[in-house]
């Protein structure tokens, strides 16, 4: 860090905090023990601002902003938790549950799922919306891993980790709206794709959509925390 870096000060939930100018509100909040819920964000990957769970209120702005891509500004006053934000977050979680076939009791990720734990933290006790029950496929063509579209929330972490960290860009998204699917290569079966078998996508998947064959969630916790370290070592080279 150069000596000329101008440190910014701002207020998050009434707490005075300091930050480097390139930091996001989310980073600074977490540094200071303020938890803002996220699903698409993962330390070490670029942010896309897609899950909308990390929306925050900024004093002087009527629009809500995603904390993961909002840069800090001098004198900014941020509210990371309010009745309005909680309501939107709960609704988003409900929308996710109703969108595909999320049934925790029969999921490989049960007890080790970010969607599940977030819904508990946010107090989502039931889903008011009708389940859509779409007919979705399971791709078990890969020798080591399985992709179950029923449990995918389209956070695109797998897409980003494959393109940005592994450098293979096997994963991508096809389709539009509710018809979106994550795909390998040009929608070929995973087992026939150019997959390098590194397993990073499985480690970063927040739900049971991507999992290692023969392992159930609690037996095999995922380890997405290797990414920032990997990035740091790469920069050092």
């Amino acid at each position, binding site marked *: 860090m150069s000596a000329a870096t101008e440190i910014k000060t701002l207020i998050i939930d009434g707490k005075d905090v300091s930050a480097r100018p390139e930091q996001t509100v989310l980073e600074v909040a977490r540094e200071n023990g303020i938890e803002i819920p996220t699903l698409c964000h993962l330390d070490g990957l670029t942010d896309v601002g897609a899950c909308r769970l990390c929306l925050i209120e900024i004093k002087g702005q009527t629009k809500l902003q*995603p904390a993961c891509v909002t840069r800090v500004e001098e004198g900014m006053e941020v509210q990371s938790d309010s009745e309005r934000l909680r309501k939107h977050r709960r*609704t*988003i979680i409900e929308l996710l549950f109703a969108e595909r076939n999320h049934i925790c009791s029969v999921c490989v990720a049960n007890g080790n799922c970010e969607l599940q734990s977030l819904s508990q933290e946010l107090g989502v006790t039931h889903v008011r919306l009708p389940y*859509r029950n779409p007919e979705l496929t399971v791709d078990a063509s890969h020798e080591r891993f399985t992709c179950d579209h029923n449990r995918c929330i*389209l956070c695109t972490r797998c897409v980003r980790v494959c393109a940005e960290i592994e450098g293979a860009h096997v994963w991508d998204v096809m*389709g*539009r*709206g*509710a018809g*979106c699917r994550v795909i390998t290569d040009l929608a070929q079966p995973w087992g026939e794709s150019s997959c390098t078998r590194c397993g990073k996508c499985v480690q970063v998947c927040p739900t049971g959509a991507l999992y290692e064959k023969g392992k159930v969630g609690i037996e095999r916790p995922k380890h997405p925390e290797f990414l920032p370290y990997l990035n740091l070592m790469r920069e050092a080279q």
Partner: protein
Amino acid sequence: MNLEELNQIADAVRAENGKYDYAVNVCQGTGCLAQHADQIQAAIGASAAAAGKNVQVRRVGCLGFCAAGPLAQLEPEGHLLKGLSVARADEVVSSLGGSPPPGLQCELSELVEKQVQVVLENSGKIDPEKIDEYIERDGYQGLVKALTELRPVDVVQQITESGLRGRGGGGYPTGLKWGMVAKAAPGQKYVICNGDEGDPGAFMDRSVLESDPQRVIEGMAIAAYAVGASKGYIYVRAEYPLAVSRLTSGLREARRRGFLGNNICGTPFDFDIEIRIGAGAFVCGEETALIASIEGLRGVPRVRPPYPASAGLWGKPTLINNVETFANVPPILRKGGAWFAKVGTAKSKGTKVFALSGKIRNTALIEVPMGITLREIVEGIGGGVPEGHSFKAVQTGGPSGGCIPAELMDIEVSYESLIQAGSMMGSGGMIVMDDSSCMVNVAKFFMEFCMTESCGKCIPCRAGTVQMFELLAKICEGRATMDDLDLLIDLCSTVKEASLCGLGQTAPNPVLSTLRYFKQEYIEHIQNKRCPAGVCTIKHEEVPA
């Protein structure tokens, strides 16, 4: 190229036109062409030759009165003919100089009177593929003036002074946007013209591109000079093949005349334009999604800021404006910003093109001054709803807008007043509805549109529009309860506040505005299981025996 050379070209065109006793201008917009306007033009030409009359039969752009096509305008009398056919070509030719054939003449008094044409000033008057005809009507004088007399900062000043605001719907001050791109870090910059017009019932940009493509090219070149860009893109949807072909030939002509390329008008200014054709996604009209699409990526929006003005196409400062916005630029440069600002209201200046459609007598492409009332548009220009029906509401702003009820018909057309009424200016679609339209069904229609056009990136829009559509369908079918209505309102607020881009943020507007003015219709569907307009098919549950 300088003003003198422009005048020489214009004089040559005038001399050519002066050789003829009469002219028949046959509309060759998409609507008229679909009814074989090209064959009609050929038939009139053949008939004139056979009759030995000295007639110039010309292809022109949209004549505006689309539902009555195929259209043609006769000169020098100025009669507008409607419903032409090949069979009546002889009659048209023999009537030249006298009164038009019976049944073919349009009654246009009000349709024409209340309009003020700035963007459409050449539409229906010039051959869209002949740059010299554009030059004859003062075309490219604005660009030549800008390049030879003004500094870039003066050009931005003219636009700021004009009070022009983005015509794509948002209404962002154009001068401010140009100033931001001009002030961004020097180096490679881009100018993009957004021609991805996708609102149901909207065809303003298509008509401008088909009828007067040079106007958009000139506007972009002026913008490029003002902001310091050397490369431009026009993004047009693939569903507009005629616009694409006329733009392609327009760009070729502009290069031939030296208005694009290197050292334009003998100055150090270089600029060229490429066409990019969309693949049918509505969301690509959103500026960041459009930029991603030009870059060859999947057309999904990204979070702003950074705005394209600072980091746009390939991360470079990018000016992105709508077709109609660029089309307003040449006359502003030619006549000055103050001239433009004379028309309109305090905050909304100039004119706006609307595609007037729905339950209305005169389906037309119109250009009206800002500040005109909705009543003047619907009852005056549009001629009101068909006989035997009563006017109910007008929908503006497409799937992002809302329905304005009959009791608010005297509000003026401006960015602010339409937002206050729960709708928005939008890109210019105006759909008129009468008592045979069910407002719940209208809301369902637009929600279905948003649902299928959602890109799927953010959850509130991707999953929320699906749930809202299902709830609306439930209400329409008489299966809903009042709790469902509460849930719908609750979802509206989350989708509106939490979605990533404009598509999701405005998707609930058709529901919210119909709930605001026509809540009784929703309740009627839910409690009495009946559709007041008789549109929805109520599914009655079978009573067990």
